[in-house]
């Protein structure tokens, strides 16, 4: 009886799971886990995958995403590591195919200057505004110093 109940539950669960699948289904996947040669390689792989963006679910890293393409790309990244390619070469490989978008840290080039240095520019502009304000207030303040109720 118990196995039968379990089977019924499993069937029910499968039906429910099937009904709740999102509209974009996934192709068949290769279930074998990634084969790391040693812990150092695994650490390097995880560090690299965390810096790459999943091309399908764009708010996840390659390391976090469960999308099929992320699965394939992780396998490809590990293969490239086994071929002795450097991190920079692997990133270049992916940028050539999927564009700059795959990098969480875009390269510093004329096109990305605003992205890289924009925040610093804004900070400098804010500092300049505050500095001028303070200087002007300081100039305006001394005559008003003897009537504190103004403030």
């Amino acid at each position, binding site marked *: 009886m118990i196995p039968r109940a379990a089977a019924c539950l499993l069937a029910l669960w499968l039906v429910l799971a099937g009904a709740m699948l999102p*509209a*974009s*289904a*996934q*192709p*068949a996947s*290769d279930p074998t886990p990634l084969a790391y040669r040693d812990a150092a390689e695994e650490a390097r792989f995880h560090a690299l995958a965390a810096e790459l963006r999943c*091309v*399908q679910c*764009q708010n996840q890293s390659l390391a976090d995403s469960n*999308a*099929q*393409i992320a699965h*394939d*790309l992780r396998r*490809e990244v590990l293969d490239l590591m086994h071929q002795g390619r450097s991190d920079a070469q692997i990133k270049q490989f992916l*940028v*050539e*195919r*999927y*564009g*700059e*978008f795959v990098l969480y840290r875009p390269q510093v080039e004329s096109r990305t200057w605003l992205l890289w240095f924009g925040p610093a520019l804004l900070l400098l502009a804010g500092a300049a*505004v505050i500095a*001028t*304000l303070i200087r*002007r*207030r300081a100039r*305006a*303040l001394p*005559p*008003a110093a003897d009537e504190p109720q*103004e403030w």
Partner: protein
Amino acid sequence: MSPSSPARRLSLPLLLGGAVLFVAVVALLFYGVRRSGLADRDSLPSALIGKPTPAFDLPLLHDASIRVRAADLRGAPYVLNVWGSWCPTCREEHPILTRFALTKRVRVIGYNWKDEHADALHWLEQLGNPYLLVLADTDGRTAIDWGIAAAPETFLVDAQGIVRWKHSGALTQAIIDNELIPQLVQLERAPAGASVRAAP
């Protein structure tokens, strides 16, 4: 009153600058909100546009003993449509793609991505096969070279094997009419040297 008036007068350009910044931020917000409504808001421009197709070598879905290389398809433009029997959006797109393929305007080639062989054949039997030939990429290796992220995706490749256009997501009649066909017209107007070569 007199000590505060110079301060107010001096802060006017500052206020103006602040107003400009505020309007800019509102404009950016408005742009973002409008963009979030687009169906293809997540689609990325292909990194391959203007570049040659990857040098693939893939078997045909219907006869694995025949392999097709990138060079075999040179000589005339072709449309490459990425699909899988596991992909519901491909099913939605299928009638629109079929209608376009029937015009025989350009060769329409299928790219069966990470599919079960029997499922793929069944899908084509059930819905009809709009493709001139179907390439089978079972392990998805070559798809990485194409920069394929999700099905369906559609590429337009010119006679020299250069990728000219790509659409991620389902094709619609509007996309075919407003993007694909104008791109094709542009290819057909290409220098005479390109069109002299016969199709294979």
